């Protein structure tokens, strides 16, 4: 019988080693599925990870694909940091996209200088509005935010589908897709020769701001305090409700801006497939990024790399593109599972207790990560 014993101190080499192990285990677990599709797992993984980084154009595609994940990952990380489990980034992303489409098609003559901030503000407001009810229920009546944010995701998707099947249906093609947004709303390209657009730059600026606030300001300290222990924070005079409410609203606003970025930067119109589960993947990004803005940026790019690779592998190796999601989710579970060993070391149970093991009695505490 193996048990886990609290470590006295974590060796510096441990975390990188464990992450390395997680990657290997993920490979071993997913390889049979790739083989089932009739492809060589090694070749498939080379396509997932290496191939997208070989040409400037495909690196651009990686950055483009990581853009929505940057927004949702940041949104989730900020909320989780403050102890608000926002699982509804998907819904907030969708209503942000709806808001951007609405302003983009209604006021289609507005010039770019005014149009882009206008769309961003509209999307941020929509995202914040979508999280407002769960946030108020949470801070006012202690109603679990996980459930309420989750339940609003299908509602947001139904809103999108309702608009596309009803008032916004394309009058020319009769397809369930909206008209195109006005030219002023199109995000300009920021890296010439690629499709990387302003949304990516905005996401990076937001990540930098989030780092600044979380790591260098009193607001950030309050947020982290509330997340670690709301009782402790309250005892030290932190306005727990205010902090949680504002973190939730900022989280919703950022997720909403992600929807704006996807509409104005890439699709130029609203479709039913505007979000490929970006809100849920944002939870993966935030968790693997250890809820830090720098981590979110790195992980979002890694997942962007895998998604671009999975798309190309589906064409060349006939491995269905859903493999990208399988790899991502496996990596998440293996990593969070194995990182437990950072705080606990496995010990093979001996029958008799020695003085050494008795000295290591750990306090019964809530383990958060």
């Amino acid at each position: 019988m193996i048990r886990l014993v609290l470590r006295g101190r974590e060796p510096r080499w441990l975390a990188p080693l464990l992450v390395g192990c997680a990657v290997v285990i993920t490979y071993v677990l997913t390889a049979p599925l790739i083989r089932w599709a009739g492809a060589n797992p090694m070749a498939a993984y080379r396509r997932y990870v290496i191939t997208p980084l070989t040409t400037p154009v495909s690196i651009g595609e990686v950055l483009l694909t990581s853009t929505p994940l940057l927004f949702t990952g940041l949104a989730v990380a900020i909320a989780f940091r403050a102890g608000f489990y926002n699982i509804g980034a998907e819904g907030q992303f969708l209503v942000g996209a709806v808001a951007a489409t609405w302003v983009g098609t209604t006021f289609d003559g507005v010039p770019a200088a005014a149009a882009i901030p206008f769309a961003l503000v509209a999307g941020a407001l929509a995202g914040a509005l979508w999280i407002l009810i769960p946030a108020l229920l949470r801070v006012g009546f202690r109603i679990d935010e996980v459930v309420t944010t989750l339940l609003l995701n299908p509602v947001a998707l139904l809103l999108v589908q309702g608009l596309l099947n009803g008032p916004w249906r394309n009058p020319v093609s009769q397809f369930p897709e909206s008209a195109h947004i006005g030219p002023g709303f199109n995000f300009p390209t920021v890296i010439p020769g690629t499709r990387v657009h302003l949304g990516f730059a905005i996401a990076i600026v937001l990540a930098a701001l989030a780092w600044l606030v979380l790591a260098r300001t009193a607001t950030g300290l309050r947020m982290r305090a509330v997340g670690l222990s709301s009782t402790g924070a309250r005892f030290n005079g932190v306005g727990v409700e205010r902090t949680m409410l504002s973190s939730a609203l900022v989280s919703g606003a950022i997720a909403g801006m992600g929807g704006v970025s996807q509409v104005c930067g890439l699709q130029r119109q609203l479709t039913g497939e505007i979000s490929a589960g970006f809100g849920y993947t944002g939870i993966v990004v935030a968790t693997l990024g250890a809820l830090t803005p720098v981590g979110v940026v790195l992980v979002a790019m890694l997942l962007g790399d895998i998604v671009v690779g999975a798309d190309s592998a589906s064409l060349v190796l006939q491995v269905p593109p859903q493999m990208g999601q399988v790899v991502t989710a496996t990596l998440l579970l293996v990593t969070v599972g194995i990182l437990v060993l950072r705080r606990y070391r496995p010990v093979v149970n001996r029958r008799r207790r020695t003085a050494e093991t008795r000295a290591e009695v750990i306090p019964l505490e809530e383990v958060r990560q």
Partner: protein
Amino acid sequence: MIDIADLLTAMFVSATVLVYASAGEVVTERAGVLNLGIEGTMYVGAFVGFTVADHTGSPWVGLGVAVAAGLVAAALMCLLTVTLGVNQHVSGIGTTLLLIAVCDYSNRLLYGGGQLVQVKTFPVLFKDTPVASQYLLTYIGFLVLVPFLAWLLTRTGFGLRIRAVGENPEAADVAGISVARTRYAALLIGGALMAVAGAFLTLAMVGTFTLNITAGRGWVAIALVIFGRWRIWGAVAGALLFAGVDALQLQLAITETFAHVPREIMIAMPYLVVIAALAASGRNVAYPGAYLKPYRRI
């Protein structure tokens, strides 16, 4: 005009899924573990049940294998949340994402992008009687499973142990109850029931598998558990409320007054009603004492 008999019939069919799923989640959460993998477990149950029924021609074999798949999904949650003590929100969402991705991947490999395959569904009992014409699983769910689980949780030693490790694992441990083993048992029971809920979708209600077939019903079940204050009968009442609104919107959609209301607004109604019900009744409810807390000894 609304046909009350049709309304009730549809309500019990659609409530069956939620009864199995939320009963499974009640058992799990009573042991102190939040299983957010419920949506993925239902999805696996739906997909595996459909695939096996398609290959063997028997929905019962499909149901059996779906339950086995649900147990595997629950075992994954056991490993993460009980043995390793990982954050339950993250492991649950991760499990759901993984299971849905694996099912969609397998679906693509097995069925490509071809036309919908219909499978033989469960027979309907008492075919021409209003309201009573239901699937056997509906009868089992309401008349056998629910009373049995309510009895199990409140009147047996096993149920007491589940509640003990969910309320105060330290005390339970001192009293000689294996916290890990009890939580494993609760998670496995829950996983099996969630898989039945999913299989009921494909093998009774729809007769085929489509992407996103669960459509957030797992999240609804989680809400129903809170709404029912972690009691089986409370969750059943919540399931009937959601299913009642769901059946009502389907009926209203064909009446003259509501024919012009977009379908999507009607479909969204039950979700909003559940949130409203939570807002009205879920204030400051008492969660199981060890909710979300992993337990480790020495």
